[in-house]
């Protein structure tokens, strides 16, 4: 009996042993295509007609583009599962997948620590205003001339967490060790146990009363540009904003304006609306701390994520169901 086919979209960087083991229960195929157009052609030519499971990475969108309705319409009829290697799965139109009876999984939890760690690094970097001086030092000007404005301590500052999922809750515990006072807004209020006693506030109150605002929510139709001009105007003058979620939850152009006006004192960003493109107004701003989507970029976390995604593939192949289906498909 021939093995079922699995399509790999992207690279395996760490979990080579586990990937090899998966290769014993499935035939792995990879695209030769290096563009969306070519990939769709490969689909149309029947190259993937026997594919049952897709393992895809965030970076594979550089070749296939988004897994939107158009792309999904070209995917083979036998395809039943897409195992996505990442916590955020906004690149995939889940609704369109459901309509085609394709089940989607993501990688929750494994990303929590690493993302919250980068989140904390950015909070400190932005609040303390380190970037300007770090650049001055590297240019042989020590702290800079004139010296940059002083930073601020996190002790006693109100940290507003927008999106109290695994990452938000993980961040809260770390931020408390720095003396920050957490409060959160979420679609739904969490139990005391889960929220660790953090105050639940309305979206508007979160904006109005937070000294530091951390964005930890998924990107979808409801949350796109949830932070824009109107929201900046509600915030405390001199607010610090950190985003390790998805760039598009914040209107990047409006952010640049708010920074220039001084409404927002500084930001720490790990994600951008049109990665890898960044608004030039941000790149030119020395007062902000910018990382190129490093949230889970460690040997340990990347390995854990790959293994989790491989396990989802194995579960699909051996048991006909995914380990961690995305929220929208839990009742499918």
């Amino acid at each position, binding site marked *: 009996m021939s093995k079922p086919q699995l399509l790999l979209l992207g690279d395996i960087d760490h979990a080579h042993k586990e990937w090899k083991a998966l290769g014993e229960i499935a035939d792995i195929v990879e695209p030769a295509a290096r563009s969306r157009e070519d990939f769709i052609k490969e689909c149309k030519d029947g190259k993937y007609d026997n594919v049952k499971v897709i393992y895809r990475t965030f970076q594979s969108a550089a070749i296939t583009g988004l897994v939107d309705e158009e792309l999904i319409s070209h995917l083979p009829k036998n395809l039943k599962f897409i195992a996505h290697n990442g916590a955020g799965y906004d690149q995939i139109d889940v609704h369109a997948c459901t309509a085609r009876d394709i089940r989607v999984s993501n990688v929750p939890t494994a990303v929590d*620590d*690493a993302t919250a*760690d*980068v989140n*904390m*690094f950015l909070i*400190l*970097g932005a609040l*303390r205003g*380190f*970037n300007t*001086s*770090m650049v*001055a*030092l*590297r240019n*042989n000007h*020590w*702290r800079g001339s004139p010296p940059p404005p*002083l*930073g*601020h*301590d*996190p*002790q006693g500052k109100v940290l507003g967490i927008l999106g109290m999922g695994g990452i938000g809750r993980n961040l809260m*515990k*770390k931020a*408390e*060790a*720095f*003396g920050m006072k957490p409060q959160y807004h979420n679609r739904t209020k969490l139990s005391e146990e889960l929220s660790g006693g953090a105050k639940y506030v309305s979206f508007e109150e979160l904006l109005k009363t937070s000294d530091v605002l951390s964005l930890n929510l998924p990107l979808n139709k409801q949350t796109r540009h949830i932070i824009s001009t109107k929201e900046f105007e509600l915030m405390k003058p001199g607010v610090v904003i950190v985003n390790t979620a998805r760039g598009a939850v914040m209107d990047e152009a409006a952010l640049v304006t708010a920074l220039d006006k001084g409404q927002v004192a500084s930001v720490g960003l790990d994600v951008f609306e049109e*990665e*890898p493109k*960044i608004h030039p107004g941000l*790149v030119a701003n020395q007062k902000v*701390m*910018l*990382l*190129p*989507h*490093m949230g889970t*970029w*460690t*040997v*340990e*976390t*990347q390995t854990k994520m790959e293994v989790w995604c491989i396990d989802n593939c194995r579960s699909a192949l051996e048991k006909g169901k995914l380990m961690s289906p995305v929220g929208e498909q839990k009742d499918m």
Partner: protein
Amino acid sequence: MSLLNMILKPRILFFNPVRHAHSKFQELSAIAQTENLSSNSRAEFFKDLNGKYKDINAIYSTSSSYAVTGKFDLELIERLPSSLKFICHNGAGYDAIDIDACTARGITVTNAPDPVTNATADLTMFLLLGALRKLNPSLNILRRGEFKKGVDFGHDPQGKTLGIIGMGRIGRAVKRRAEPFGLKIIYHNRNPLSPAEAEGVPYVGFGELLSQSDIISLHLPLNGNTRHLIRAKEIEKMKDGVVIVNTARGAIIDEAAMAHALESGKIAAVGLDVYENEPQINKSLMENEYALLTPHLGTHTTETLASMESLAMENARRGCFGEPLLTVVAEQK
């Protein structure tokens, strides 16, 4: 105000103007004669000590006070007037003040240990995370317009061993911050703390700490015993790929040896806020992207600087009015 009152007001000489704790300064200025140093050089200061400063009672100093007069060494201390009884330093580190010379002249020195604790521990964590996660190269690559190109994978802190050298206030503050990141902590100190004081962190010998730690963070003062505590020999004992963080004093580490070990890859990354010869930095370190470097910003926040200024002024006030001082340096307690 009567002439008598003016004559009897103690004189406090501020080596740097107060920039944050303004209301405290105003309060102090109402009961003492406060003035900013006007001397433009060490020689001029020596002259002024025989002239306009011959009856000063207290000096308020900061870490940048030595830029004009040079360090408060034996030569300078010996020239201070007999009316000068207090040097109130607004920083935690006072290695630039010759304490023995002060004691010999009956001058009490106070520093400001507590206000610096949180800000220094916060910066320590920033440098620790940045170095361990290898974030510095990615900061640069992004600004060069190459987003994530060629960026190396860093490491997670969860399950790694953090060795704290110097378990004073700052060391313990770092321990409290490090714990929620899943770091296992060990410490070495001149003398072991009681288990309660050490908050459950195990004490190890210096050699053990060097060989067991994935990350080493320095939180001890600079003095005769700690200068170049870490040299090539000590680095050799460390784990391959160790991460070193220093927010204490640059001279505790042999900077050239550290730069060399970073270049060879023995040290995977460093996070530094202090340097042997600030503001000069070892050239090889400057050129190494795995060195996350900040220019001595350990306490550079409005809140902390105000707190440091306040404490130094309060010590000066107490000294001048015969009240018990809050934070006399350890050597003089």
